[in-house]
């Protein structure tokens, strides 16, 4: 058994969520003691594949072998018992517990319910020694540790669970350079011990530094596998994005006019860093970038949901250094949130209340809310935007995601926003609704509105925007005409390769 070279074999795994094919006939081979890079764009199916391996999702079809044995984990516990440990992007540690308690959480050693602290402590110390980090004492509270050290605790936890396969999902997204180097050393130690690692990262330069082999996923399907040494970064990007632009982008003629919004070296609490740009009336400006590059933070700081630390905003000729959301709305700036269910709409309220919440004052007569006027106003936008709803007074929770998003967008129309900040406007909604939203955005620009749109979906940026700027680690590159960009060029800029 131990002679087998291949630790994990995944063949023909498919998974469908409703109308969306998340994984289609995926193949993955991970050798013992190798670091295997799993790459692909956002939504390519990497997360779904991890969840299948971790036992959180049961695939519709396909087979998996672990160490030559059929592997069909029923739940995360079964996968963990089989020797698979997953370290997620958002760390899953209990901050108020000690290092020791976190590492041993769920696998405490005990005799008749009484913890054997000594034995547990020894185990944790061994793991920390293996990772060459005896500087961390098991009694420290996790909340006192930095993000890099927390990552190590997660790895120690994997070691203590006798993991044979450690899956790391974007482990460096919250780490500084020194912590990244430390983590790479730890990964090397794991490899020496014969532990396999599946490493997921958007940072391609990291992959060439650490991975032995790679697998590329695109639109839920396996595209390419090979040895890291035999491939170039450009080849990887080609494999990730190589997709023809379909014509799901209805064009509405519009012409950029005078500048409406100018940002001068905006800095947020952490991100963005020195973001400057100019947005014109009748223009759609796209911002591309990796998850965590600071796009959302830029929009939120601009709208006043997050503080602006320094820099100036010039809006229709008036300069300020940050204003709260209600003041921005009064200046006719509106934000469409990327977190639809948590922030974009209030699920408990009706469609009418959601749509008019930012502009209730329009329906006030003599100090009281004229519900009839409010409803009529909402109905007008429901018709304009094409929200499919049985009854405008029904709770918005009963609508589909696409229709909820249309209500959130209609809200910006209702309060007559001149500047529309759209954060991932089509995330998680179906293709039909997407096309309708693109048409709507085009029509807004045609009416002289200024649209600033963040998206991780490159075809959408290339299909809808007049100009595109790319954000990399909090820094916003110069905006260039869409005709000057290709998916490959955007991805390269997003990875910091060719900084414009």
């Amino acid at each position: 058994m131990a002679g087998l070279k291949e630790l994990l074999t995944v063949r023909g795994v498919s998974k469908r969520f409703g109308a969306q094919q998340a994984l289609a006939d995926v193949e993955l081979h991970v050798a013992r003691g190798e670091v295997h890079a799993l790459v692909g764009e956002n939504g390519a199916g990497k997360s779904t594949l991890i969840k299948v391996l971790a036992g959180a999702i049961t695939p519709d079809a396909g087979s998996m072998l672990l160490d030559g044995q059929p592997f069909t984990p029923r739940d995360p516990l079964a996968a963990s018992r089989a020797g698979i440990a997953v370290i997620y992007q958002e760390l899953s540690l209990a901050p108020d517990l000690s290092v020791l308690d976190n590492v041993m959480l769920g696998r405490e050693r005990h005799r008749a319910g009484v913890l054997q602290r000594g034995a547990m402590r020894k185990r944790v110390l061994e793991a920390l020694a293996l990772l060459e980090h005896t500087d961390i004492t098991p009694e420290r509270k996790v909340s006192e540790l930095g993000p890099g050290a927390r990552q190590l605790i997660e790895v120690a936890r994997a070691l203590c669970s006798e993991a044979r396969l450690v899956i790391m999902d974007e482990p460096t997204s919250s780490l500084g350079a020194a912590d990244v180097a430390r983590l790479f050393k730890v990964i090397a130690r794991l490899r020496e011990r014969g532990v396999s690692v599946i490493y997921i990262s958007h940072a391609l330069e990291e992959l060439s530094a650490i991975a032995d082999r790679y697998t590329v996923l695109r639109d839920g399907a396996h595209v390419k596998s090979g040895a890291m040494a035999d491939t170039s970064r450009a080849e990887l990007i080609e494999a990730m994005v190589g997709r023809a632009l379909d014509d799901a982008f209805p064009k509405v003629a519009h012409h950029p006019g005078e500048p409406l919004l100018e940002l001068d070296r905006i800095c947020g609490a952490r991100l963005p860093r020195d973001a400057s740009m100019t947005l014109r009336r009748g223009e759609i400006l796209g911002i591309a970038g990796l998850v965590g590059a600071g796009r959302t933070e830029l929009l939120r700081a601009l709208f006043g949901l997050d503080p602006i630390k320094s820099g100036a905003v010039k809006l229709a000729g008036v300069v300020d250094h940050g204003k709260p959301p209600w003041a921005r709305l009064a200046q006719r700036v509106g934000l469409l949130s990327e977190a639809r269910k948590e922030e974009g709409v209030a699920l408990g309220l009706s469609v009418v209340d959601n749509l008019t919440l930012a502009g209730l004052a329009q329906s006030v007569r003599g100090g009281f809310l004229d519900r009839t006027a409010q409803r009529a106003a909402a109905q007008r936008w429901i018709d304009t935007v094409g929200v499919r709803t049985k009854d405008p007074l029904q709770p918005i929770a009963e609508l589909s995601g696409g229709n909820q998003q249309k209500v959130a967008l209609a809200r910006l129309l209702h309060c007559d926003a001149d500047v529309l900040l759209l954060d991932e406007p089509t995330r998680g909604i179906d293709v039909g609704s997407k096309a309708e939203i693109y048409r709507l955005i085009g029509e807004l620009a045609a009416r002289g509105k200024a649209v600033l749109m963040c998206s991780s979906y490159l075809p959408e940026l290339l299909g809808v925007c007049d100009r595109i700027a790319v954000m990399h680690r909090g820094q916003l590159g110069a905006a260039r005409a869409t005709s000057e960009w290709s998916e490959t060029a955007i991805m390269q800029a997003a990875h910091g390769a060719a900084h414009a």
Partner: protein
Amino acid sequence: MLKRALAVLGPFLALAFVIALFAILLPGQFLSAYNLKTVATQTVIVGVCAIGMTFVIVSGGIDLSVGSTIALSSVVSALLLRDGASTLTAVLGGIAACGALGVVNGLLITRLRIVPFIVTLGSMGVARGLAKYLADEQKVDAPVGGLSALMAKTPDPAWLLLSPGVWLMLVLAALAALVLTRTVFGVHALAIGSSEPTARLCGVRVERVKLSIYALSGLCAGLAGSLQLARLTVGDPTTALGKELDVIAAVVIGGGSLAGGSGSILGSLLGAFLMTVLANGCTLLGVPNYVQEMLVGAIIVAAVAADQLRRKSAV
């Protein structure tokens, strides 16, 4: 559609059921004019507080300080009366003190970002202690004079039918219902309770609205304190102990969700009535006090369980 109708009808049906039950068990006695007046008058204190509490709970908060606030108000008004202030000045003084307490609650919650439970748990103790300090740990005898007419079971002009305090509560409730459903402030309160991030995104000035809500709750409790003074004719620093739980129970029985985003003034009043009716009927039946307590407890849990079921089926 049916579910939404049930949410409004639930407290109505429960109240009607309990009234019918006692009407059958206590023929002639329970539904007598005198007893109904008694029930109405007994509901006033909790009912008035529940009006303010509805705004608090709808916005996703909680106010545990109202019981102590009632006592503080009654003591402050009694002291003012004793010092020769006019009835109106004394009542307004008591209410103003409680409004100020509500503002402090609101400021702590919005400025220091401490959860409402903790802030109002603290002010519950502080207000009670303050009331005892001001009253020198004794009941404050005061010339309440005309004030006691407010809570007379049989009102002075007989055509009023119910005591002036009951009418005061009903008028206030009607106004509050209008504010909750027909003003920007009311919709903003609901929006905050439903999803605070969304409210902020839509330009709702969350801090300002919350501050007003806790001030409003303080004012309502202050008014309830004046009515309590009218009823007891002394300022009592130990009165209304644990009353905040009755008030919260009334709102919850009336369809208010502690998670925020739902609740109605009418429902809260019905909840308050339900609890008084239950207590009154049980007393008339000679059911021991401890059974009443268990009954009220069971009803609170049942009301919340019904609320949970409703929510689950809605998603």
